Structures are given as structure tokens and as C-alpha cells.
């Protein structure tokens, strides 16, 4: 993507600020808060390639500072969650729950996606969401319908280990069904529905989509002995062509 010029960037900021101000004046005062978005504009534009104002060391430093900020934010959110749930025995603050769980899911998903590829990310999301759902409903102690429904994403994740697309379809359907019942038909307040929507159907839908997508060209599984296999899960470094065994991958460190 071609980076924006300094003038185009300035114009973009100005248009955004004026739009926020006008919406704040004529629609709702809450739109003034959107002006805070200007503080995050440059990192976001940088992330999508529209701004290239930092060299590689500065980018690494920026990422490190963001990661530290993430750890601090999640630490504060976890403290607030623990304090409300286990010390004051109250409903945890909505914002703390959102920051804690949604950012954890985003963190794990992005980390897996960028380091391990689509298949592994789909499997991790399927196992994590299905597993947590199954565990929490099981802890309630009875065989409620939710208990059995929670088992479906977990079963789909197990199926996806062998039959990736079958597992992907089931996870996608599980996500759609949970989105319908928890968000569309949900009786809880809108903010609770938003929270549940981000926590349950969104990761299930994402897991399903990732498992149905073609694998990345660079995606490899790592065997127990540390040798890279190919995308189909075959562990060897050689591929058979017309009866001959032809090495396709040099062993060595990856950059």
C-alpha cells in the first residue's frame, strides 16, 4: 500500500477532527470523545501501511512499548475482575471483563495467526472456546442443554484435527447459532450481549472461517524432533515426484 504524503495525512486528521466536532455539536456530545482517536490514528495508519515514518529499530521499540502497555492494562483489568468477583462478591465491571477477555482472545489469535498459520489458529480458538464453555457449564454440575451445546465446538475442534473442513463447518455453524441465540434473541442488556458476542460467537466464527480457508504457503507443522513438515502435516523434508524422492526443503535456521 502506498504511504500517504504529509499533506494527505494532515487533511485526513483535519477531516476526522471536524467530523467529530460537528457530530459532537449537532448529534451527541459523546462524539467529542472520538477526538481521542486522533491519538491512535498514526499507529493504526502505520499498521496498515499508510504511514512509514519510523525505521526498523523505532518500529521494534514501538511494538515493545505497546506490548508492555497491553500487559499493564490486562493486569489492571485482571485485578479489577478478581476484586469484584472474589473479594466483593459482585458482578465484575463490564469494561474490566471486556478488556481482560477480549484482549486475551485477540492477543492469542493474532499471535497464533502470525506465527503458526490459519489451521493452528482455528484449532486453538476452537479448543479454547469449546473447552472453556464445556468446563464452565460442567462446573455448574448438571447436564443442562448448555453443557451439551458447549461440547459441540469442542467436538468440532477434535474433528478438525483429522477432517479440517468438517470441523470448520461445524464451528462456523456453532458460531452462527450462538450469535443468533445470544445476540439476536438475547434478553440481556445490549452491553452484555456485545460482551458475549465478542467472547463466544466471534471466535467460533473466526475459527470456522480459518479452518475452511486454504493454508498459508508458508504454514508448516513442527514435528517432535523439531523438523519442519509440509502444510499437509507430513513431517518429511522430501517430496515424491514420479517415483523419485526429491528434497524440497533445506534444513537450517529460518529467518
Amino acid at each position, binding site marked *: 500500500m502506498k504511504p500517504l504524503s504529509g499533506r494527505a495525512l494532515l487533511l485526513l486528521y483535519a477531516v476526522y477532527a471536524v467530523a467529530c466536532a460537528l457530530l459532537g455539536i449537532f448529534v451527541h456530545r459523546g462524539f467529542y470523545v472520538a477526538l481521542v482517536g486522533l491519538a491512535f490514528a498514526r499507529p493504526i495508519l502505520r499498521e496498515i501501511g499508510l504511514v512509514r515514518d519510523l*525505521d*526498523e*529499530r*523505532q518500529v*521494534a521499540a514501538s511494538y515493545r512499548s505497546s506490548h508492555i502497555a497491553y500487559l499493564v492494562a490486562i493486569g489492571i483489568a485482571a485485578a479489577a475482575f478478581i476484586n469484584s468477583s472474589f473479594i466483593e462478591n459482585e458482578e465484575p465491571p463490564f469494561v474490566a471483563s471486556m478488556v481482560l477477555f477480549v484482549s486475551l482472545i485477540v492477543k492469542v489469535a493474532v499471535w497464533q495467526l502470525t506465527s503458526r498459520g490459519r489451521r493452528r489458529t482455528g484449532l486453538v480458538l476452537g479448543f479454547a472456546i469449546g473447552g472453556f464453555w464445556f468446563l464452565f457449564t460442567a462446573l455448574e454440575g448438571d447436564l443442562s442443554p448448555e453443557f451439551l451445546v458447549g461440547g459441540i465446538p469442542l467436538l468440532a475442534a477434535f474433528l478438525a484435527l483429522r477432517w479440517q473442513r468438517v470441523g470448520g463447518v461445524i464451528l462456523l455453524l456453532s458460531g452462527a447459532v450462538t450469535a443468533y441465540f445470544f445476540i439476536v434473541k438475547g434478553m440481556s442488556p445490549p452491553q452484555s450481549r456485545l460482551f458475549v458476542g465478542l467472547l463466544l460467537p466471534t471466535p467460533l466464527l473466526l475459527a470456522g472461517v480459518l479452518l475452511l480457508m486454504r493454508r498459508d504457503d508458508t504454514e508448516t507443522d513442527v514435528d517432535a524432533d523439531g523438523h519442519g513438515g509440509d502444510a499437509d502435516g507430513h513431517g518429511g523434508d522430501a517430496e515424491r515426484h514420479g517415483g523419485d524422492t526429491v528434497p524440497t526443503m533445506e534444513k537450517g535456521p529460518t529467518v
Partner: protein
Amino acid sequence: MADKVHNEVRTQRFMHGEMTQQELAARVGVTRQTVIAIEKGKYNPSVGLALRIASVFGMSVEELFSLNKAGEERS
């Protein structure tokens, strides 16, 4: 054990007409602070940047950067 990367960037700058950090930074497309960090060994450049720096001095990356095992004396 952690490896420390030794570099000859500072030496080569002075051997190439006392090139300033700013000039080197401009030629390889980074900030002066990044050149300082590389010279002090606080930042290891990417392969691309190492190649660009080596190209400025007309030498190979291996001549400019070398790997020292931690604790070893450089010969």
C-alpha cells in the same frame, strides 16, 4: 549462551572520510539514533539494513558484523 554481535561500523565510518552518523543514516534510510544504537551494539540490524550499511562501505556483511560468543575475547 547469548551471542553478542560485534560490528565495525564506527571504524568504517572514520575510514570513509570521517562520514558522520547522520550521513550514514540518510544513506541507509534510518535515523541517526539507530546508527548510534547499532554502533554501540544495542541494536542488531535486520539483514536488509545490514546489507545496505555494508554496501555503503563496499564490503560484505560478514566483514562488517561478526558473531562473538558471550564471554569470549575477540581475536
